[in-house]
């Protein structure tokens, strides 16, 4: 064996990846060649240094507790099916289709236009409700046109949404459909907000809290979609996420220009249309 060949193979030799015949040839060459033997000794020394590398990283005792909380404690066992996976998937798709159909049917019997403003005690008007306040104090919009999302109210404290336990809830297709619907309502609400030149602040407390909850759900659903190779769903949720983040990060009383920016972006990117399209296409195309 020539020295050049030997040196080319030295790393594989060290890694134990050579075929037996090559290994034997290299063994013989290393015995006979001092230069190559020295090169190999250097490689060995280098390997020894890396072997002694101590990252000082330990598995913290609480980690199993956290993992268990989202796995064995949550469900007892992974969803191993008594049904074949493909049949399970088909049933899930069917259920989603039924859920969307029922929702669509019900929505047609509700208010004729979900985007039109409704306020609790007044009839809707084109120029929505705004409280009269003395001109000396900043104007804060207390209420504004908002679609009532089909959702439970947000929980009290959502300041930690990004690390919330919600992040690992086991969600299925129906949850995705519900999530898309609620997100669509939220974004429509933002898209339809009337911002006047005289507004100093806009009260977005409700939207912000809702957005935080939806953001948390979105992260889980997006990962879930990715895991299950539902790429259109994953892409849509990935597109949705920046909007939820921006709304979630607004102060309770947001500056009009900040709200306007989000509003314009919702319009420009046609994210609402994308959400609608996703719903319209139905479960069979996903």
């Amino acid at each position: 064996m020539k020295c050049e060949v030997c040196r080319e193979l030295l790393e594989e030799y060290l890694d134990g990846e050579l075929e037996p015949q090559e290994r034997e040839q290299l063994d013989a060459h290393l015995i006979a060649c001092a230069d190559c033997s020295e090169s190999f000794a250097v490689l060995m020394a280098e390997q020894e240094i890396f072997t002694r590398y101590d990252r000082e990283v330990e598995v913290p005792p609480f980690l199993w507790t956290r993992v268990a909380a989202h796995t064995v404690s949550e469900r007892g066992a992974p969803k191993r099916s008594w049904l074949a996976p493909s049949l399970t998937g088909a049933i899930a798709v069917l259920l989603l289709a039924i859920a969307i159909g029922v929702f669509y049917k019900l929505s047609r019997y509700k208010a004729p236009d979900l985007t039109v403003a409704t306020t609790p005690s007044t009839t809707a008007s084109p120029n929505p409700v705004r409280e009269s306040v003395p001109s000396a104090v900043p104007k804060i919009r207390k209420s504004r046109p908002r679609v009532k999302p089909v959702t439970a109210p947000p929980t009290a404290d959502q300041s930690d949404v990004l690390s919330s336990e919600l992040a690992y809830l086991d969600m299925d297709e129906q949850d995705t459909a519900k999530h898309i619907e609620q997100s669509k309502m939220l974004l429509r609400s933002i898209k339809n907000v009337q911002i006047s030149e005289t507004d100093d602040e806009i009260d977005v407390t409700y939207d912000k809290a809702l957005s935080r909850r939806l953001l948390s759900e979105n992260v889980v659903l997006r990962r879930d979609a990715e895991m299950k190779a539902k790429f259109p769903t994953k892409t849509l949720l990935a597109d949705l996420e920046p909007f939820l983040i921006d709304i979630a990060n607004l102060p309770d009383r947001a500056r009009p220009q900040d709200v306007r920016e989000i509003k314009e972006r919702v319009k420009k990117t046609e994210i609402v249309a994308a959400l609608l399209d996703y719903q319209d296409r139905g479960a069979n195309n996903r």
Partner: protein
Amino acid sequence: MNTSADLVTRVCQGDADAFRLIFERYSRPVISFIYDMVNDRAVAEELTQETFVRAFRAIHTMRAETKLSTWLFGIARNVARESLRARARANTHVDLADKSVMDLSDDKPVPVEGLLSKELNDLIRRSLAALDEDKRMVFTLKVLHQCSYEEIAAITGFSLAKLKTDLHRARAEMRKKISPYAGVGYEV
């Protein structure tokens, strides 16, 4: 029996203890690998958690011929890559190819023995972080975790040719950084 294959079967049958055994057996190599990739202890903990949660959810999809450690490292690799991408997008990525790493190559005197271990660990950590992602992954799996080429190919999805090339280049880059500690001015 507590072979990996048995543990997987038991987890699929709903045995929570079996999953705990899998965690106990593999959490340390997984967190080490992730730490090598992301160079952040807190992030490594979080991503290790994510890895095992994903593994639990998908364990029934694992093929019988797949080695559990390879499969777990594959998930860990995906989780780490996603995190690195997200950090890069958020511009929070810290470039660890810093001057102190470069300064330690070639001409610097070898530190005294007492400081060697800590400094060397720190140097290796920073030098790893300075490698590009593919090289870092291959180097970590081969040199620090002693995976075979076949396992690395299964974990990373790289061809044998690519992983050999990346590994050779990674070794060369790491060699430059640690050569003062090896005590020899060498070429391989």
